[in-house]
């Protein structure tokens, strides 16, 4: 399109801005990676040296020995995040559909309340949540990390998915209704298949949210080593004498690898989903 044509200076400006932005976002990862490759002796070298000939993947090997449960922690992270995602979607899909299509009292107020809940971080609710977990005898179980995770992610999920479902033409549902289909049948056979890109967007964002937030719930509600997710398990690299920074960074990078891989596969849906319905097709 003509309007997508930029002159050379505009292009330089755009790429310069992208460069600044990406540097800002990616530099911590570069530093993590560099640290994970460096031997411990090198890390505290003064003056600071960015490059060395001593880079090796030794830390990626040693970390499994230093923290024998590391693999378990990574699996725990994925398990908790997956469970949170599945449960959240089970609640979010009917709720979002109801908000997108049905009329009921206090609809917009309750929708606003969901948004308001998001303003409280998990941290301010930790003590009441601890009491709840205690009362329900859920402390020191996977559920103590899963249930609060689900609770905090439902509101955003509803908002995201509702926006998507509203874009599905109402006439499709009316046509199904005229042909005798119930709401549930229509949801299953017409609405959800058409909402797949939206479901992927919501699912991925819930998964990432669950992955990121589980640390807080893990260190508060769970004392059992075997149930800890990666973020909590990384503490084991902090010894009495020294901190194995290189192994910790290697473990952190290994732990987020699954998420990055999922992201790469689904990113075309993410971009399409977040901008869906923005223009008439």
């Amino acid at each position, binding site marked *: 399109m003509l309007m997508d044509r930029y002159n050379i200076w505009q292009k330089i400006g755009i790429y310069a801005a992208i460069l600044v932005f990406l540097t800002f976002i990616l530099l911590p990862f570069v530093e993590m990676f560099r640290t994970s490759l460096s031997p411990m002796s090198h890390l505290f070298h003064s003056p600071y040296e960015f490059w060395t000939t001593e880079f090796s993947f030794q830390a990626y090997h040693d970390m499994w020995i230093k923290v024998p449960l590391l693999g378990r922690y990574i699996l725990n992270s994925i398990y908790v995040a997956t469970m949170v995602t599945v449960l959240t979607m089970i609640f979010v899909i009917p709720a979002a559909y109801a908000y997108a299509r049905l009329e009921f009292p206090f609809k917009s107020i309750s929708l606003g309340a969901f948004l308001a809940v998001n303003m409280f971080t998990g941290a301010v609710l930790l003590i009441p949540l601890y009491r709840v977990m205690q009362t329900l005898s859920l402390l020191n179980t996977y559920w103590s990390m899963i249930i609060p995770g689900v609770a905090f992610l439902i509101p955003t999920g509803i908002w995201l998915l509702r926006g998507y479902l509203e874009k599905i*033409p109402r*006439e*499709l549902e*009316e*046509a*199904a*209704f*005229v*042909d*005798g*289909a119930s709401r549930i*049948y229509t949801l299953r*056979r*017409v609405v959800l*298949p*058409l909402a797949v890109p939206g479901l992927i967007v919501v699912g991925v964002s819930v998964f990432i949210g669950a992955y990121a937030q589980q640390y807080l719930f893990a260190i508060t509600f769970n004392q059992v080593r075997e149930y800890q997710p990666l973020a909590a398990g990384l503490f084991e690299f902090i010894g009495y004498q020294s901190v194995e920074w290189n192994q910790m960074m290697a473990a952190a990078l290994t732990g987020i690898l699954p998420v990055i891989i999922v992201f790469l596969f689904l990113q075309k849906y993410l971009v399409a989903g977040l901008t869906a319905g923005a223009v008439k097709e």
Partner: protein
Amino acid sequence: MATLNLQNITKSFGASQVLKGIDLAIKDKEFVVFVGPSGCGKSTLLRIVAGLEEATSGAIVIEGTDVSALAPVDRGISMVFQSYALYPHLTVFENIAFPLRVQKLPETEVKSKVAKAAEILQLTEKLQLKPGQLSGGQRQRVAIGRSIVRNPKIFLFDEPLSNLDAALRGDMRVELSQLHRDLAATMIYVTHDQVEAMTMAHRIVVLNAGKVEQFGTPMELYHHPATRFVATFIGQPNMNLVPAKVLGYDTRGLAVELDGGAQLTLPVDGAAAKKGDRIEVGMRPENIHLGQGLSMKVRVLERLGGTSITYGHMDNGQRFCAALPGDADVAEGQTVDLSINPADCHVFDASGAVLRRLMAPALAA
């Protein structure tokens, strides 16, 4: 198949009343078109018949049974939507089969019914395609296929041709008329296009501002419009309305003087008119020919080949339009002398109601 009676249907959205008491009796196997300008309530009325909207008051009676409280599928109706409302993720086969899947019919029955519908609509070759791979006309046929597959008593069409281009629309009009004959079903069709209404309908319901202006055959509407609204809505180009004054009434008809001076005696039932009453004389452009009595200055001339349509105004500034023969010797900027057969004139009183024409064509009986 089925009769449909609407009894005093009203519909309000909040404070605004969009349907103000609709009474209609539609006969079995009839093809009825609801026509009217946008916002007249025609789509709302159709949706009420379909069961997609609830009427504020009134009853919908199909084959003698009040169906007002029933779900669409239990009313025995099916509907074709303006956007076709095809399911983009399903094949043509599954789109047509959808109502049967809802009914959980056995696979063999589904197959044979879909095959039959596909054959009627010439879609047999396309059954495995997705709607996105079809042309507009084919998508339209799939939507119709979905509506015929479960054998409804009444078919409802909501402006089904408005998304098609002009040439295809003409073809689909013929196909729909053909389909109506083949299925021998009651059909109700909503459109804002008077050509669709005139060509396909047995009877037309003209709606305006939530009320039925007239319900009659196309030729009744054309020759005996009940109101000024119907007269100007039906017919292309629109009827000219020339303000006039009543001079008197006798056995020959109503003597009037047009604003601008011309005097005519019109064969209409003017018993109720009094001398000096203000009226409007309706003259269809196609009834006007070159002659004497009326004069018009031509502003725009459209030569369509068979006819030449002139737009302009009369001496007193009254806007006027005439459809003259294709080879008529007129030019833009020129003043032409015209005339009209008094029997072709329509007369409307101050309220917009018609004075019945006494010498109308036999076709309109």
